[in-house]
């Protein structure tokens, strides 16, 4: 064929019928069956002329239309007492109209979905690297739930046992900084650091090693007493001390 005809593609016989109903601007409840049937057959014919595969459904519908058309031509049976029932109940087009209406519902929903699809296609969500988070939080961490303090405790336990076995006399000077004082100091400092205080900052002022240790123990104690909490936002990151949530907004 030397010329090209653009033939609309229809999803099926119902789709084609709707196209014809729309084109002719006719009432779906009162389809001029002869006219529509004629146009329907014309379309199928042009499809065949173009060597297009006419799906069997289209042919079944054609037969159906012709049968309705034939029934419409038959003389109507005599009217009974209820004329309304007559018209509605015995119209040969009824079944077709019902099926068309049912199909139309979903055809419209499909158009609605098409719109939704287009809008949603323009909305982007964050492509979070789930693997990264999983790895961060979820990898086989054999130290799950173990803090560095637990590690120290473990060391302490061992060495204590060693001490017991090999008692060594050692004079321990009375410490002038108590843990209790340090705890108060840490809490006081937290008042001025509502957005968190770097763990390291606590030790800047400490002059003696003993004071460092006392401060360290004070922090541990405050954690235990649930006065403060510790966060580390990322590996190797700064360890931050925060007031516990319960205290935060007060």
């Amino acid at each position: 064929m030397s010329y090209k005809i653009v033939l609309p593609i229809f999803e099926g016989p119902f789709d084609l019928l709707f196209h014809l109903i729309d084109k002719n601007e006719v009432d779906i409840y009162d389809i001029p069956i002869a006219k529509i049937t004629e146009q329907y057959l014309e379309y199928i014919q042009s499809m065949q002329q173009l060597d297009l595969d006419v799906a069997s459904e289209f042919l079944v519908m054609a037969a159906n239309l012709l049968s309705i058309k034939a029934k419409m031509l038959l003389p109507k049976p005599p009217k009974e007492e209820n004329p309304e029932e007559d018209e509605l109940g015995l119209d040969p087009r009824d079944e077709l109209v019902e099926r068309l209406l049912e199909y139309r519902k979903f055809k419209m929903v499909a158009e609605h979905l098409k719109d939704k699809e287009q809008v949603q296609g323009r909305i982007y969500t964050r492509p979070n690297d789930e693997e990264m988070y999983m790895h961060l939080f979820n990898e086989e961490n054999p130290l799950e739930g173990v803090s560095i303090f637990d590690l120290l405790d473990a060391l302490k336990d061992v060495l204590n046992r060693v001490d017991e076995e090999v008692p060594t006399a050692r004079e321990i000077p009375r410490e002038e900084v108590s843990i209790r004082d340090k705890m108060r100091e840490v809490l006081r400092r937290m008042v001025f650091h509502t957005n968190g205080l770097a763990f390291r900052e606590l030790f800047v002022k400490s002059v003696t090693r003993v004071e460092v240790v006392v401060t360290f123990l004070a922090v541990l104690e405050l954690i235990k007493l649930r006065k403060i909490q510790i966060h580390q936002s990322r590996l190797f990151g700064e360890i931050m001390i925060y007031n516990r949530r319960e205290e935060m907004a007060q």
Partner: protein
Amino acid sequence: MAVLFPEETKGVIECVLFIANEPVSLQTICDIAEIEKEDALELLRELQEEYRQRRRGLQIIEIAKGFQLCTKPEFASYIERYYKPQTSAGLSKAALETLAIVAYKQPITRGEIELIRGVKVDKAIATLLEKDLIKEAGRKDGPGRPVLFGTTQDFLRYFGLKDLKDLPDPEEFIVQNTLEDEELRQMTSE
């Protein structure tokens, strides 16, 4: 409002929505923020409103039975300059019609869908299954025990629907559409 620290809790909710890769259910939000459902809902609404009033690029939408932080559609072209998503042409008319039928009539068999559409739906069903928009949902009693189909969570997400109830009532839909058609016809004929 029984939440002690609503402002901080909104921060928690925002964080979770930000780092999640999918819509976050109300239940998950409650579990993480340790709050009650009604409080979570109230805070979410407030956060949603905050985002609305900020007039920036992001929004919180309710989708697929959860909440999601995402960009606004009007910024799509800028985002696509940075981040080229796999272009998808969208679903075919046949697939959309089939999906519409499954959505409203689920669980439904292939035969029942074909009855409504008046055509074979094998290809559409295969496409929809492949895209995880529908799934097999058991088998129907009766001869041949045909497979029943239903929609998936991805279906809701793909179309930005909260849940199945978010779909329009087709009856009302038609009345409205017919009215609009009528108006259109009048307008164009004027």
